[in-house]
């Protein structure tokens, strides 16, 4: 007997099977159509996306060029800075609730205390760090792909090598610590020549907006190249002053890239299969930054720093008279570009900037070219040359100096420094007699003086654009008419101008170039700081010849007269700098003690007011006086007296120049 029930009637279902089959076919048809769309119609797009997924362009870093002085000493290079980061969840697993902690960290001890100990973090800072980590880890979600709790956090920048070694030694106890090496600009001479070299700093918002405007990432390669040829990126540093800024495009170099195969976990894939998948071009070699060779002699700058030690503020320029190349460009107070360029970390840079900009002696100002000052008596040689050229004064004729002179109906007489008695032009320069020059100015009038001074580059930008250049001012009749109207001018302006006061202002750099021209027979050079561009291997790529700016037409015997007078400044018993006369040093120069012309603000601190009320001390010179090699200009800002404060500095610099020349020559011989 059958154990099974009788068969039931299946007639009810018969009509359905056809429809079911159709339904099945239509749904599978839809899937087939979708596959056709994905694989055939859009296959190329998806293949491209798939390719993009596995290719990463890895940036190849490049090194910024090295800056060397005339002797090959490194003034600016790069070093490695070690920044220490921590992964919050790894150093402080206790900040995440046990249930949400990844398995590998269950029961793991906090390594943060040890990290803090090795990094010499103060207890205060440590507490702050712990609070910060607790904050970012409080909301940690193990499901989320990224979280600030698993992202590395910067703890210390530019850590010393000792600490890095210590971190290495305790590596087992220090889970979650990451050391990241980044290149940092390094200035081995620190403060020396800081204004000349400048510093580097992070690109500001404006620069980024210029080089990487919105939508930059989606632009084509060519457009990006056009917009941002040097390839600036966020958080990049660039030259922000001095040679670093002006020569940025040469120093920077350009990053390269290399295509790598990377899987979804971020791991590199190599091997033959990888090579097959990489499409050419697979690499763009980086271009390393060019090296610069400066004309500056850092050892001479060292001597200047030493000579300027007693003074708070000032500038010294030393230039070669035959080429216009700068041997020293020194401004005081200066700054340590290492602090501003990221060495020691961002916080240190911020602190340094704040301090430097608040300093009343203005360390961030390059006083050699960004500041214009009344030249005082250092201007007199140019007045004398103007008088000689226009034959308005007989140089041998004497004038009487009673110590003061009255002009017109002015109640107050114009004063001289001393009662000089009868002086001719030579004596008037040597003894810096104002009365003589007043009379000379009266006879010569303003415009011929202005013409000669301008021809020597006074009151005109020199063309060395390393730092923003102040123009200075050499006023003429036309200038007064233009600025004050036709009836404003009076003879007093001419008299003041002749002794480098009134409206005359110059930069120390201008004065140095002008004195070099006086020394070399009238050839005014454009100042040069960079003499050559070299490849990173030291092969010269481009050398810069001296550039003559102007040849001043002055009769040689007139120049000779001025030279003689300037020698007397030191050599004659009555010379203003006779006290510094040195038989072994054949120096010609001119002292200057200039009234600042600007009154100190009553809001300043009393000592600053006192400082600012004092005269500027100048000394401008060339050496050796018969075969001039260098010209030296010293400005001790508010230094009071040219002969007493500026001239000794200049003499010391010249002495050092000579010493260096001799020792180097003797070294070179054998």
């Amino acid at each position, binding site marked *: 007997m059958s154990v099974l029930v009788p*068969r039931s009637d299946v007639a009810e279902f018969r009509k359905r099977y056809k429809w079911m089959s159709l339904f099945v076919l239509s749904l599978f048809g839809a899937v087939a159509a979708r596959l056709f769309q*994905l*694989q055939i119609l859009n296959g190329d797009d998806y293949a491209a996306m798939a*390719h993009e*997924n596995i290719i990463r362009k890895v940036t190849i870093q490049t090194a910024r060029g090295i800056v060397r002085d005339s002797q090959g000493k490194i003034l600016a290079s790069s070093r490695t800075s070690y920044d220490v980061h921590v992964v919050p969840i790894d150093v402080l697993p206790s900040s995440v609730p046990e249930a949400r902690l990844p398995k590998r960290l269950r029961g793991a001890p906090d390594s943060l205390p040890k990290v803090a100990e090795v990094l010499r973090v103060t207890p205060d800072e440590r507490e702050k760090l712990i609070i910060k980590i607790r904050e970012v880890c409080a909301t940690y979600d193990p499901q989320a792909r990224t979280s600030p709790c698993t992202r590395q956090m910067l703890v210390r920048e530019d850590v010393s090598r000792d600490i890095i070694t210590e971190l290495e030694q305790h590596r087992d106890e220090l889970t979650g610590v990451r050391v990241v090496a980044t290149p940092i600009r390094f200035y081995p001479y620190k403060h020396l020549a800081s204004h000349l070299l400048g510093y580097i700093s992070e690109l500001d918002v404006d620069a980024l907006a210029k080089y990487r405007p919105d939508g930059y990432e989606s632009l084509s390669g060519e457009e990006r190249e056009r917009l941002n040829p040097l390839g600036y990126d966020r958080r990049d540093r660039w030259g922000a002053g001095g040679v670093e800024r002006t020569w940025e495009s040469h120093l920077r170099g350009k990053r390269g890239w290399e295509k790598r195969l990377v899987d979804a976990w971020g791991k590199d894939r190599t091997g033959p299969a990888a090579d097959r998948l990489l499409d050419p071009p697979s690499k763009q070699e980086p271009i390393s930054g060019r090296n610069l060779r400066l004309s500056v002699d850092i050892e001479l700058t060292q001597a200047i720093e030493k000579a300027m030690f007693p003074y708070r503020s000032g500038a010294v320029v030393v230039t070669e008279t035959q080429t216009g190349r700068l041997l020293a460009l020194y401004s005081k107070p200066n700054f340590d570009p290492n602090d501003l360029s990221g060495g020691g970390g961002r916080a240190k840079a911020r602190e340094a900037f704040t301090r430097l900009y608040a300093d009343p002696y203005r360390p961030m100002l390059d006083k050699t070219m960004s500041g214009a000052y009344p030249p005082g008596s250092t201007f007199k040689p140019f007045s004398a040359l103007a008088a000689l050229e226009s034959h308005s004064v007989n140089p041998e004729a004497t004038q009487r100096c009673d110590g003061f002179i009255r002009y017109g109906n002015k109640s107050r007489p114009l004063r001289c420094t001393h009662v000089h008695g009868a002086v001719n032009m030579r004596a008037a320069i040597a003894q810096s007699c104002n009365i003589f020059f007043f009379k000379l100015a009266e006879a010569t009038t303003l415009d011929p003086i202005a013409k000669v001074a301008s021809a020597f580059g006074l009151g005109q930008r020199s063309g060395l654009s390393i730092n923003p250049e102040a123009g200075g001012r050499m006023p003429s009749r036309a200038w007064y008419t233009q600025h004050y109207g036709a009836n404003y001018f009076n003879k007093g302006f001419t008299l003041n101008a002749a002794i480098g006061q009134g409206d005359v202002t110059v930069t120390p750099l201008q004065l140095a170039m002008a004195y070099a021209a006086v020394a070399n027979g009238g050839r005014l050079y454009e100042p040069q700081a960079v003499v050559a561009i070299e490849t990173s291997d030291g092969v010269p790529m481009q050398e810069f010849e001296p550039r003559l700016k102007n040849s001043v037409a002055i009769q040689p015997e007139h120049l000779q007269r001025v030279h003689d007078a300037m020698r007397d400044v030191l050599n004659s018993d009555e010379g203003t700098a006779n006290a510094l006369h040195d038989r072994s040093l054949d120096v010609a120069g001119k002292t200057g003690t200039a009234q600042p012309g600007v009154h100190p603000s009553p809001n300043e601190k009393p000592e600053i007011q006192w400082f600012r009320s004092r005269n500027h001390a100048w000394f401008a010179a060339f050496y050796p006086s018969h075969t001039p090699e260098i010209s030296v200009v010293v400005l001790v800002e508010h230094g009071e007296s040219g002969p007493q404060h500026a001239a000794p500095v200049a003499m010391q610099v010249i002495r050092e120049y000579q010493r260096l020349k001799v020792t180097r020559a003797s070294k070179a011989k054998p």
Partner: protein
Amino acid sequence: MSTRDTLLARLRDNFDWVLFVTASVLAMVGVINLYSATSVAKAPLNEVYLQQIYWLVGGGILSGFVAAVDYRHYERYGYIAYGVGLVTLVLVFILGREVNGSSRWIYLGPIGFQPSEFMKLFLVLALAKYVNADARSEGRTLKDLAAPAFIAALPAALVVLQPDLGTALILGLIFISILAMLRIQRRTLGHLAVLVAIAVPAFMSFGMLGFQQKRIEAWLNPDRDIGGMNWDPHHSRIAIGAGKTWGAGFMQGTQNQFHFLHEQHSDFPFPVFAEDWGFAGALSLLFIYVLLVLWSIHIAASAKDRFGAALAIGAGSLIFWHAIFNLGMVTGLLPIVGVTLPLFSYGGSSGLTVMLAIALLMNVSMRRSSLSTIAFSSR
């Protein structure tokens, strides 16, 4: 005639070679694809193709027994099996272990299984038994459908609570598929349409959990949150599309080899296959599925009784809906619901369920001829 002779004879004369070959080809291609899919994975994932083979062998033997016993014996135990299934579903909440936020697994010693997978088969059995007994000459009304609806709703509700929307969906679709065989009044169909039109949006706005809603949202905005919710769908589409016409070749698909595809052994084996073998391979695979499903309809059509026909439709719909939902979600036609690709995805419980479904199909298919009836009834 001995039983042994009749069994052999039946095997010889009635063995469904089409069903067997289609299923076998699918299983073999599936193993080969698993090998490719997990070739770069870390241990123990890189050995799942071996385990899949063990499962196929073990499941194949079990399937042999299931196919050998006349399916009409199962009819008697239909509700009992269904009841046992419900009990295991309840046990999940008591003994179940939580994996990825939902409890689907029961562990018997070292072996874990998902009761919800086997529930699909038990539901087919129970519904087939109900349909078998419920022969009618005129169309059914809403009231007539209440009982089978209840049979389907009970396990579906338990599965929704796990929560496992994908399986619940398959249970519901199996129910609808078997329902589609029945004669239903036109008016009732209208009522059902209205009911669905109200229930589905209502469930979507109130019944779905946060992550389920997020999946729908992600599906509607395929270009958003590619790093998160849309990672799998996005990279799945890229892998499929990158296969183009002929594919990259076996184990050459970069998106899988470079770890961009996740769950490539469970829910996403198809993108691996489509990237390796291109449109040509994908279409061939699709053809095998179509053949398998259409053949199960053919088996139903030639079944001798209502139970066998309903069994075949139920088993066939199980395979069909799994395939459609899996392919739909990996191609972006449907949101992500965790539904495996039959015989392609690795998975003990789900693989075994599909193999048993095929065994039931084989069972029905082998007993459509008169020989079997005579042989069995004359014992």
